[in-house]
Each structure stands twice: as C-alpha cells, then as structure tokens.
C-alpha cells in the first residue's frame, strides 16, 4: 500500500497495519507529536508510517517498505511488526489490513 489513500490500481497489496495511538484526540500540536511517535514506532516495527488514515485522529497506516518479496521474509516481517505493536504501551489498537470483498448491487 503506497499511502493511506489507497493502492495502485489492481496492484498487489503488501503488508500493512492500521494503528491507533494514545493521546491523539486533542489539538494539532498533540497530533504532530503523535505523528512523530508514529514515525518512530513504525521504524521500530520495521515498517513505514504512511500517514494518518483519513480524518481519524490518532489512526495511522504502517506499511512494509518495498523490497524483495519472499515468503519467509514476509512472515518474519509480520511477526516482528505484530510483536512490536502488541507490546508497545502507546498502541491502543492495531490490526493488519486485509482485503475486503465488496460487491456492487
């Protein structure tokens, strides 16, 4: 996922996580501080902070940086990210992003 706004059309979806951080519901200065913490947390998890998710304060999308795609590496990257995100005290909630199936009606 290249950014919080979306994916390249029909491109493969890499690993990504939605993360809700504590203390980001207030003013813009707080939001800026949270963004910096999000950057640091993403780096620690081996991911890149792709930015805030739409208008949801404190919610960020972390993506796996571009690189070689091997099954073993991907699983290792997933485990590392899960460990870091699950163990960090500032993470209120996190979820790996998976494809949703939606149909036109």
């Amino acid at each position, binding site marked *: *996922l*290249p*950014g*919080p*706004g*979306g*994916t*390249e*059309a*029909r*491109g*493969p*979806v890499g690993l*990504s996580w*939605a993360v809700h951080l504590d203390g980001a519901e207030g003013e813009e200065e707080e939001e800026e501080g949270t963004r910096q913490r999000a950057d640091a947390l993403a780096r620690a998890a081996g991911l890149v902070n792709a930015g*805030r*998710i*739409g*208008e*949801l304060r404190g*919610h960020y*999308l972390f993506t796996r940086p571009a690189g070689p795609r091997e099954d073993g590496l991907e699983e290792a990257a997933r485990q590392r990210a899960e460990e870091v995100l699950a163990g960090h005290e500032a993470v209120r*909630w996190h*979820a790996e*992003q*998976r*494809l*949703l*199936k*939606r*149909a*036109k*009606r």
Partner: protein
Amino acid sequence: GLHFNDPKFPQQWHLNNRRSPGRDINVTGVWERNVTGRGVTVVVVDDGVEYTIRDIRPNYSPEGSYDLNSNDPDPMPHPDEENGNHHGTRCAGEIAAVPNNSFCAVGVAFGSRIAGIRVLDGPLTDSMEAVAFNKHYQINDIYSCSWGPDDDGKTVDGPHQLGKAALQHGVMAGRHGFGSIFVVASGNGGQHNDNCNYDGYANSIYTITIGAVDEEGRMPFYAEECASMLAVTFSGGDKMLRSIVTTDWDLQKGTGCTEGHTGTSAAAPLAAGMMALMLQVRPCLTWRDVQHIIVFTATRYEDHHANWDTNQAGFGHSHQHGFGLLNAWRLVNAAKIWTSVPYLASYVSPVLREAKVIPLAPGSLEVVWNVSHADLALSGLRTLEHVAVTVTISHPRRGSLDLRLSCPSGMLSLIGAPRSLDSDPGGFDDWTFSTVRCWGEGAQGQYRLSVRDVGDRESRVGILERWQLTLYGSAWRPQEVEERRRLLEDAMSGKYLHDGFSLPCPPGLDVPEEDGYSLTPNTLKTLMLLGCFAVFWTAYYLLEVCLSQRDVALDLTCGGAPCRRARNRHRALEEGMELEATPLYENKDTEETEGPPDLPNQGSRDQEGTLAPALDLQEVREGPVC
C-alpha cells in the same frame, strides 16, 4: 407543467409514471417549486464517475471527488474487461443528471452537485473504506453507497473497526457538524435467501438502509428483507417490468444512456437524490433528523405479501419495505418545517452471559432483559429509534439459526433470519443485529431475545454464549412523537413550501479537513514547468534591465538625480512610450493636495483622468531611484 427535452425523460417512469399514475417518487411538484437540490453535494462512492458525460459535467464537483484506487483527485472510471465500471456513473446520473440538454435523462436532484469517489476498482481495505467515508466531508453532504458485502446468502460482514469509526466520525463532524448522510443499498441476495441483517452497513445506526420495489410496488426477486431497513424506493423488477432509465458511461459498450439499471443499487441513489432535495429546503437537518423524516413520511401501501405491522407509536413497518415508500413531496414538505430532534441518547445493558443450549424448532431459547426507569434516567432516553443486539453464538451451521427480538410493546423483529446457504461452522462472534421496528415506542420495559434452531435433527447443538442490548433514541416522550406526526401531516398540503417561509437554521461548525487538496504527479509536473518558465523569464528580464542600465552607469557627464529623470523620460519618449508616471511627476503639487497618502483606492487619477498605479506615486514621493 414541466417540460424537459431530454430524449429519455418520458421513459423515466420513476420520476413521472404516466402508465401507472402514482407509482413514482412524486417529485415533479417539488421541482415546480424550484426545489432541485441546489446547494447540496451528493457523492457516489463506487467504481468512479465519468464526469465528462454531458449529463454530469455541469453538475460535477471536482472538490468533492477523489480516486482512492489510484490515489489522485480524478475519479474517472477505468475501462475493465467486463465493461463493468459504469456502475458509479449510472448512480450519479440518477441523482443529478442535467435536464434540458437534449441528452439522455434527468436526475432526481438535478440542481445538486455530484462528486465521485472511486474505490471499488481495486483492492479494498478497512482503512480505504474509512478514508472514503470521510473524504471531503465538509463538501460532500450525502454519501451514496450502492454496494456492500457479498449477497451470496452466506456472508456475514460489514464495516470493520476503521470503517465503523469513520461512519461515526462522519455523523459527528461531517457537514459542519450536522452529520454526513450515508445512504446504503440493502442488498441483492434475494435469490440466495439472503437478509440484510447480515450486512453490517445495513445494521449500522449511522446509515440509511434503502431497499427496492418494482413498478408495481412489490419486492423484486433480488431484494432482501431485514428489520433494519428504513424505507424502499423504485427499481427494476423481473423481465416484464421496466428498469431505471439513467445516464450511463460512454466508454466501451456504453452509449451514455441506459434503460437497464436495476437492483437495490438503483434504489439507493434515488433516495440520496431525495435527501438532497430535503437539504436544500432545510440545510441544518442533522443525520438523525433525516432518518426521522423518512420514518414519519414513508408511505405504507397495500401489499399482502409484505406483512405490515404497526408498532405502538403508530408507525407501520414491514421487513420487506421498511416504513414504506419514499415520497419526495412528503419528504420535502416535512423537511421544510422540521425542527431538530433532541440529542441522541443511548442505553447499553451489561454483557449477559448465558451459555444456554439453543433448542430445535418448534422449541426456542428465550432470554430477557428488563430496562427500568432508573436505567434510562441517566441518559434521558425515553423513546426508541434503533435497537441493537450483539450476540456470540456457537453453532455448527450458522444458517440454521433464527433470532427474534421483542420490544417492550411486543413489536417483534426477525433480526436473524435463517439462510439455507450459510453453512458456516463459526456461529456469530459479537455480531450486532439491529431493528428500527420499535421506532417511537417507549424504551422502558422487557426486551426478549428468542433463538431457535431450524436445522435438521442431525445438526449439533448451538449455544447462546452471551448477548448485549443497546438502545438508541431520544428524550422525546411518546406524546411528542405523536404531536410531530400531526404537525407534519398539516404541512403536506405544501403551504410552507415557498421561499417566503423558512425556519431559522443554526450556523454549522468550522471543522477543518486534514489533507485539503493533494497534487497529482501530472499537476506537479505542470507546476514545475511553469516554475521553470517563470525563472527563465525573470532572469531574462533582469538581464535586460541590467544591460539597459549600463548606459546610465557609463554616462559620467550626468551623475545627478534630476539629470537621470530627465534622461529616462527623454529615452522613453524616444522609444515612443508614454509613461503613466510622467504626468504625475510633472504635477506633483497637484497630486499631493488631492488627498491623503492612504487613499482607499490603489491608484489615483491625474488631471486627464489617467489611472496611475500607486507604485508610481510612491516612486515620485521618495524621489528618483536608479
């Protein structure tokens, strides 16, 4: 009295049914009073909108649009192998197709602006849905979503964590605090025995769930039933019945116009268009006001198959048709005089752990929860709007379960209909069902959840692990609900539907949007080229100025300022230029006595009336500079 030259308008039976008068949305009288959705923006969240088509272009809102599949502001649909990405354009045409342009058709709210968010043409994630639901939410008033989880009769899905958060955020902060209006299609899984209570978007209290009826007012073969459906409007039926005529894309097999738009996809945009008409006459309606007006004005009609029930507040509801047919005339007249409902109040029961066996039909497991006056006193909740039940059930074949909820009045809702194709062994894990059938009733009393297993006797035992009841409503008393009903019926004559009558509207909140307008790579390239041109032009100009000044620097015989002015003027005259500054310089005294230096206008006039730039004035006062 209205005449449109759009060639397909006479076939748009849903707008003006000449073959079966009355079987349409009753909108022409509203148009005649200049209510066309002016000042309202509807956004179609779908596979894109071909905004260059003649029916769309004049009403297109680029400010409200975005492409989440390609991450740029242009929601133009991309041709695909199946010629399938015409869906959003068709929906957009239903809402806001431009009239009297001799092209195709007319939209329900043809005075509104239409935007597109392209999101269904590629991989979709929870975070993308969340972005879509709040995209440009201070510009877009109504989000029309003609899509949802698979209607295969075995899917249980809906918005995930972020999508839910975005819907909630949208109704709180969107539309300057009045709340974004989310219209969703109820589903096309009728053939698969599907039910829209298994669709989380339809169950959400933040959405307006719209179903379809055919031209004869019956539930079409594709339509789904559910207890959370608010209302229905027209769409296509079986082969003998007409579909919706609307604008289409002109890419691939498209001609720019279609007579074959159908499904609940075609119904939801008609509803969204009608919401736009409401917001024109009363822009400060909140998202809950809009829901209330639908409940209060939708019309119940004779259809023996629909199993209408009347609740204690006097509202008729059917699992097939919700509170009935949407009627544009009634909606707009009600909107015109509507004052806001009291704030949303809610009550949440504790998580009720049961761990009880679900018996086979005709037996059933019944669990109850009493909501007392004291329970409701804290929130002030008196009358109901949505009632939700969150259940965790283990069962080896989920589709064999039958769940019913009874409100204190006895009003019964089938919140979990059996589905023959759903053989999922996972049961329900905190799935929230909802019903609107108790709308307007008193909230206090006993709620009864009944669960039974309609599977065969070989199926293993299901267990109701836990459940939780959530009530949503307001501090309105039942009498106030009744009073509002009477008030609305009084307005249906149309006596308030003129420009001379308007209730005061509070100002909205100033809610900033985070990302404003993002630039596409193409726009950035264009800007860079323009920037380069500006730099070169500036350099060229500076060079020219410097070279022209070299003559002055080398003229050693004339070093004083007066001499320079005289020389410059002399050179300008030689070149045939009449400088505007020249007469000002010569009439300096006159200019100084004409007014103070901080004149309101940027320039002043000389005796001949020539407008002189303020910059030149300044130059004269400070003396000549080189």
